[in-house]
């Protein structure tokens, strides 16, 4: 099991190396520093939410509300900072708090009443998309000029701020998943919730917290997005949940729960972002881009599955 997990990560790494070789030679501008930083910036859009999603999926649940939650965060922070006149620090804090609370609410429905997480977050999905379009009238809500938002949209030591946030959170989540009682409890309850419960692990509280964390991460992504665009937009982050879930699953985390790795998710995030970037750079027809993306995602997982099986047979 350990072994096959390692193989999984190696397989993805190999796929990423292949992508770099192909795109580096075929796609003009791919290897430029600015493009690489652009990739990191785009990766942050998926990655920040993907760390939390990995834990949610390891716990045997799913959260499909990421896209609307990000859009809602972006609208919320802009509305609060402008129309509601709350000032920038308070607006940001409020956005993060409300995002967390909404996530916690979905988690509560799951943990307390056993509403399937797919349905609980489908409800949130629909409600948040509608709500952010409604309060913004489907128009972008401009952010006020501010050094703080400029900083979020800008760079830290040459690296885009969102990418820095993503990397910092990656480290935090790696430690949480591998080294904290909380993280291990997530694995335990995903692997066998009844056994975890019997061992005295607060299963309900952990479930609620996982969705709360996801809401928090989506709100962060939303604030970063608003800073990048200079406005909050209720129609943004369409379909982001698919990219996030795909990154997690490409990383080898099983939707059945109980196993998975944040590091592998990180590779999945890079993989997905690279494909998106490369297809544009290669000048592929916009519609064929979707076709190629679909084929590559399936191929990546297929190769990984086959590698994993081979390694299990020969070991």
């Amino acid at each position, binding site marked *: 099991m350990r072994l096959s997990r390692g193989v999984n990560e190696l397989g993805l790494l190999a796929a990423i190396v292949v992508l770099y070789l192909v795109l580096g030679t075929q*796609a*003009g501008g791919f290897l430029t520093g600015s493009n690489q930083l652009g990739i990191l910036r*785009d990766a942050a*859009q998926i990655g920040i939410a993907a760390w939390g999603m990995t834990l949610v999926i390891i716990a045997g649940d799913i959260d499909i509300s990421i896209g609307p939650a990000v859009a809602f965060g972006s609208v919320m922070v802009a509305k609060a900072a402008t129309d509601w006149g709350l000032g920038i620090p308070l607006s940001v804090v409020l956005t993060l708090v409300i995002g967390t609370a909404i996530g916690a609410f979905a988690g509560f429905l799951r943990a307390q009443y056993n509403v399937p997480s797919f349905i609980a977050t489908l409800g949130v999905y629909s409600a948040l998309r509608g709500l952010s379009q409604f309060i913004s009238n*489907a128009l972008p809500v401009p952010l006020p000029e501010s050094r703080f938002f400029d900083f979020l949209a800008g760079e830290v030591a040459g690296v885009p701020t969102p990418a820095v946030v993503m990397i910092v959170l990656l480290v935090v989540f790696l430690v949480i998943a591998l080294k904290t009682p909380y993280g291990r409890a997530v694995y335990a309850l995903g692997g066998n919730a009844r056994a975890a419960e019997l061992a005295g692990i607060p299963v309900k509280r952990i479930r609620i917290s996982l969705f709360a964390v996801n809401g928090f991460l989506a709100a962060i992504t939303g604030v970063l997005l608003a800073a990048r665009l200079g*406005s909050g937009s209720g129609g943004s982050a*369409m379909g982001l949940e698919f990219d996030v879930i795909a990154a997690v699953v490409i990383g080898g985390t099983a939707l059945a729960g109980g196993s998975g790795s944040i590091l592998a998710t990180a590779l999945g995030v890079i993989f997905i972002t690279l494909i998106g*970037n490369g297809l544009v750079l290669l000048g592929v027809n916009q519609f064929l881009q979707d076709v190629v993306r679909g084929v590559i995602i399936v191929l990546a997982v297929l190769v990984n599955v086959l590698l994993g099986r081979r390694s299990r047979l020969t070991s």
Partner: protein
Amino acid sequence: SSGTSNSSSTGPVKDRSLRVGAVFMDSQGFYGGVKAGFQSAGSASGAKLKLVESNPGGDVAKEASFVSTLVSSKVDALIISASSETGSVPAIRSAAKAGIPVVCYNTCIGDADTSKYVSAYVQGDPVAFGQDTGNAAADYFLKAGIKDPKIAVVNCEFVEVCKLRRQGFEEALKAKVPGYQIVSNQAGTTQDKAVSVAGNQIQANPDLDAFYGESGGATYGAYKAIQAANKSGKIVVFGSDMTTDIANALADGTVIKSITDISGKVTGKLAWEQVQRVVEGDESLGKIVDAPITGYTAEDKATVQEWLKTHADGLP
């Protein structure tokens, strides 16, 4: 920023290899027309044109990341139908700052920013667009003697352009038929959504006189819903955007009474002309080019037939 494109030379585009980034706002047929018009005009002027294209589906976030990718790849120019007047500003600004000339078509960012960052804007003014439909509708109502028409809107108002189209539509109506009433306004941009939404609107408003379709899908969906409800002729449609099946319905004339259209191909051709102007060395900013808004009505069958003949490939 340097303000220079990466192509080493300026001067005539003939025989030059040009990589142009193209951002289509979403996957409507109009953008297929733009692409075709742009490419054929480009090759006609002898350039070796390579399009690097993408389609953010109206999502400003996706648009921003596409544009940054195009900037990294140092395309020679960027043509874009901006998803949002305000939300698209950072993306376009970053392209301009990287020295990539930007040509807007169809939609663009606010006026002030356009004059700062955009080389040219091939504009299909959405308010004027809506006014054209509104006028056609008003003429129809006046002729039919309907003073207080009840109108249902099938909209695409999650993008700004569509809001502006309705604004123009209502302005024109208010001037000529002040008794009009919008009894329902619901979203239905794709044909399948529109047909079911319009069907519901017919049920909710038995005395409905007309539909306004803000987009091609909305228009066609309303048309199909009227047919399905056996209300052909009782309820009519004023719509937007030509496609082959809409043109056919308009030629028939019992349900669809008018269509306002901006030709994608013409828009694409105008965009190419601006790209050509810029890469040949004219660095002036903020030029506004009006894309012709064309009204088609059921009464003027000849023009509709003409459209069908000249658009045999279906691209608008």
